[in-house]
């Protein structure tokens, strides 16, 4: 089975000052947006999916830059190959689901959760039958009934988890809050996902 994620206990914890800075940025949505939700086609990102043959509204995930200090810390202690360090916050009070997608701006990401409303939030990986496992950026899948679940992970607070963001993935059961520091990569500097 293809590896979808890996915990990275060898990486250092994020210093408290950066966690507080990130929480503040997320609370105020204050900073340059790093996430991308549109594919350039001019069509709005759909906020509804089909699951169990019913239409379901989905959440959105906004990611914004934190600042040059944490970027320097990441360069010094994690990797020099990053393309961005941001904080993400999940938005959408009427839904608990961030629908299956591939990321718009990166291929791999280190996630470090810093605030959760509930700890039983799952990252679920999917394969669309008949298609490649790894998909181009900004792929969205609106019909969950057509997907096969291939893996899932419940990421604890304040642990680095490294994800292959080119495999369709969703976040399930976000009751309210999900805030994370995210370190983005176009390449796999840790040789985790490209290892046989």
């Amino acid at each position, binding site marked *: 089975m*293809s590896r979808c994620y890996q915990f990275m206990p060898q990486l250092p914890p994020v210093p408290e000052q950066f966690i507080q800075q990130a929480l503040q940025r997320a609370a105020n949505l204050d900073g340059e947006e790093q996430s991308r939700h549109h594919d350039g086609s001019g069509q709005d990102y759909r906020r509804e999916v089909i699951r169990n043959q019913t239409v379901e509204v989905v959440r959105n995930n906004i990611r914004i830059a934190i600042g040059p200090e944490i970027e320097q810390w990441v360069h010094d202690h994690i*990797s*020099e*190959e*990053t*393309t961005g360090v941001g904080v993400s916050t999940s938005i959408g009070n009427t839904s608990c689901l961030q629908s299956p997608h591939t990321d718009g701006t990166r*291929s791999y990401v280190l996630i470090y959760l810093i605030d959760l409303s509930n700890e039983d939030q799952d990252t679920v990986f999917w394969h669309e039958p008949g*298609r*490649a*496992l*790894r*998909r*181009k*950026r900004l792929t969205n899948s609106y019909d969950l009934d057509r997907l096969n679940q291939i893996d899932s992970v419940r990421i604890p607070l304040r642990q680095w988890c490294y994800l292959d963001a*080119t495999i369709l993935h969703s976040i399930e059961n976000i009751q309210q809050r999900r805030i994370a520091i995210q370190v983005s*990569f*176009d*390449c*796999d*500097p*840790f*040789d985790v996902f*490209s*290892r*046989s």
Partner: protein
Amino acid sequence: MSQYYKILDLPPVPELYVEQALVRAQEFTDLPEEQRLSRRANPLHHPDRPVLQVIRNGQTQSGRTAPRVDFADVMSDWVNTNVSREWNQITVGVNLPPINGDGGDTTVAHTDTTRAYVLIYLLSVSNEDQATVFYQQRGQARHRRRNTTVEDYSQLSELERACYPLHRWVMLDATVIHGVENVLGHRTAIHIGFDIDPFGVMQWEKQ
């Protein structure tokens, strides 16, 4: 088996597209430098330093350029049907002498600016012993961020070199530092760029 490239059994490009690609390459090559710059599908690595240097064995030579021009308008339907729908660019690439007139035969060691993986289909080469050489910079990861260049080859360890055949699809890991060497004249290819490895073929052996 190489960890850095794979020759894939994908359908050959129909002659109609080969001919159109060669025409587009020639039209692009014939443009003045400023117009080539504005039409490039791959931006310069360092816009403030358009001529990078190859510093090797105590000698310095100017690096060649490898601009690419869009070809998706011609080939996207065929690629979607016969190769993959997961591409981010379809282009025709040429390899040109340094714009300062120096006679270099090497493109400076780099990672690509627009893609992590690329399928290359060589259409025409001046000499068949043009080598794609993969390197690792000492003290650094093998997989590097986009737009990385290393001019001083004393920092590099050679991993592997290969000469690719004409009219075969070759998948390269473009996040590993690489350069093309011994280009004595021309080199024209169709490139299909990917942010991902849609075929799952580029895998590292466990260390």
